[in-house]
């Protein structure tokens, strides 16, 4: 190897090392920016010397006062409400979305194209528009305010068929010849679904359950509408939002942080356990749509 090529070689290596170093620095920076607010929430939830916003992060006095405060507030009820909604949504939404996406992926019937186009157009209407009437309908059924939980479940599950895109994208990647082979082998369509397709669709089933379960934890608008100021019908988002209104924040800010921790920790742990499936769902189904 002569001198110049050696130099070029060295140059490439050095360049690579420099760019890698830069990337590491950036990645550390990004990690810090992304994590810091959450670290702050945790730290502030243990602050006992004051309940309002302050200009420092590390508590001067540590304690569990905020968590005790939480226990004594309506937070328990809100948490339970949200949990029930999330659980019901996870089961029912998953069933409905899988029915929908499997059908649209596998069956070719006359109304399939028009149906999909119709739902595409339907999706262009802001969902919030329907809130007013749904509220009145739920009110007529007695499913608002203190009874908001079943009402919220009903509404969120009923329209969930519209969100079939991701799982349909996944089903589309399972070769159709598997269905055909099974049908020739003597399986009915129902048997094809639960003997062949569902075992293969495990990632997307878990993805759907996971997203359906996580959704209600952040659901604010409609939940607030349906609960209409009755604390017993709040979910965590609505309840905790009320703590941050201008006249409440002074006395509830640190409790809000504690509540945030209690809400976020279980969901995050669940999410991290099933992260693999989530990633698969997002990268597999979401883009193909």
């Amino acid at each position, binding site marked *: 190897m002569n001198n110049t090529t050696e130099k070029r070689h060295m140059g490439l290596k050095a360049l*690579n090392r420099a*760019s890698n170093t830069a*990337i590491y620095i950036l*990645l550390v920076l990004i*990690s810090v920016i*992304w994590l810091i*607010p*959450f670290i*702050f929430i945790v730290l502030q939830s243990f602050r006992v010397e004051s309940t309002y*916003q*302050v*200009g*420092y*992060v590390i508590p001067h006095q540590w304690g569990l006062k905020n968590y005790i405060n939480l226990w004594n507030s309506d937070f328990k009820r809100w948490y339970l409400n949200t949990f029930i909604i999330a659980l019901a949504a996870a089961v029912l939404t998953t069933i*409905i*979305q899988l029915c929908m996406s*499997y059908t649209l992926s596998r*069956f070719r019937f006359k109304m399939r194209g028009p149906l999909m186009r119709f*739902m595409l157009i*339907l999706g*262009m*209407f*802001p969902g*919030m*528009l*329907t*809130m007013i*009437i*749904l509220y*009145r309908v739920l009110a007529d059924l007695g499913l608002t305010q203190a009874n908001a939980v079943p009402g919220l479940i*009903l509404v969120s*599950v009923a*329209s*969930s*068929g*519209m969100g079939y895109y991701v799982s349909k994208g996944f089903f589309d990647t399972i070769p159709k010849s598997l269905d055909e082979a099974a049908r020739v082998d003597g399986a*009915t*369509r*129902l048997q094809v679904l639960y003997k062949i397709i569902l075992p293969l669709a495990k990632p997307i089933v878990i993805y759907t359950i996971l997203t359906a379960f*996580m959704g209600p934890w*952040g659901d*604010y*608008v409609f939940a607030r509408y349906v609960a209409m100021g009755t604390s017993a019908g709040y979910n*965590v988002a609505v309840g*905790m*939002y009320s703590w*941050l209104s201008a006249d409440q*924040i002074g006395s509830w*800010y640190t409790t809000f942080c504690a509540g*945030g921790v209690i*809400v*976020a920790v279980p*969901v995050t742990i669940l999410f*991290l356990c099933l992260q693999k499936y989530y990633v698969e769902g*997002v*990268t*597999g189904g*979401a*883009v193909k*749509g």
Partner: protein
Amino acid sequence: MMKQYSDLEYLRLSKWQRFCHKLIAFFCAIPHAIASFFINIGKAVKTFFLKVGAEFKDIGLTFVQGDWKTKASFLVMGFGNLANGQILRGLLFLLFEVVFIVYMVVAGGYWMSMLPSLGKQGPTTEYDPVYDTYKTFYHDNSFKILLYGVLTIFFIVAFIYTWRINVKQCKIIQDIKKRGGKLKSDKDDLRSMVDEQFYKTLLALPLTGILIFTVMPIVFMILVAFTNYDGAHNGYANNLFTWVGLDNFNTMLSWKGGAGGTQSYAATFGEILAWTLMWAFLATFTNYFLGMFVAMMINKKGIHLKKMWRTILVMTIAIPQFISLLYVSKMFARNGLINLALLDWGWIKEPLPFWEDATWARVSVVLINIWIGIPHLMLIATGILMNIPADLYESARIDGANAWQQYIKITLPYMLFITGPYLLTSFTGNMNNFNVIYLLTGGAPTNVAASGAAGSVGHTDLLITWLFKITTGAESQYYLASVVGILVFVVVALISLVVYNVLPSIKNEEDFQ
């Protein structure tokens, strides 16, 4: 007219010329597109009427050529099925007819008759001699009339459709019998529910849900845009509401200024729309490119701990948005963590107006949205980047492309090609991104010039948050909210239409499949 190039001539053009050519071609094509749109509508109408005509003809023929069982089925639905041993189908038809008739007699007729007026008599206060007090008596209920009126129309359409199927089935039965074939038994019908007709079974529940909880409300709310339904006319407890024609659209789209020199509705709407579009554009593309950038950094060969970096970012997806958004919102508030800390350290004298100044607030929401959105985009980009065939890069490197050229010539076109539809949905999704705006700013700071409009408009308000504020505001002008909702739909539909029509050309140019 524009110059036409042959394929080879086109290939010789520079990039800039090609771009101009395409741009001109796009605009030149618009008149033609519009014309063909109307021609297609005309054709569709024609085929529709032809089809309807054919249906009537078929119905007539079925009646004329039908035996007495078929003829009886015209009146008594399912008779043909029952008489031919298809008990299950026949009973279902019959049951549906009975339910329909009973419903129409008991309730449907009333709702339909009231639909044109939306109620004749509102609540009245009358003297009650027994208790010697004035008592309020409630009469018609506009809300229910509209709601059940719409439902009844749905029901009637369903009935006509079912009746038509009933007639068709009689014809099929006759045909099969004539050929000497075997009719499907009830058992066959039940079995086919899990086999060839399985899709109907699967779709029944989801579609019913969508029909009742999405389609029906949307139809209802579209109709509300043509009424004066608001807090003061709630249709029952205080005043009835009624049809007002296009008045609400006139209000929303009029340029006449409000009282006290405030700007007109049209100006306010335009302002909010402009910000909504700008926001959607910024939110979509900042996330897109930065997310791709982060993904590429993590994916780069020689970077260790890939899984850890990814997990750190992905973890933030799990935390419910309302917590992170509300917390960050308060962190940047006037008396929040950042301002207090900066004041303590003496870096600033006055709190920074993160949420008080229009420009500050807009920049802040875009930046915080990046914080929210990047992890998700990073995941998507990672998935696609790993799917780009390695030999594309290898051949580019042999051709002498450097890292930047590889990105511009391979990575980016590939990403755009794959994610084209995703970008569109993400754009429209951001237009309606209620959570980020509402939880961060609640629309603040207030737009003083627009104070004449309903719903206390703010500088960071999107159309969707404005809609929400109108309905929850003091006067609850539901009719205006409906108008806004319909306009949002129009905007989203227009954008989608244009993008979908442009997308194929992008696809042809950069076809990687």
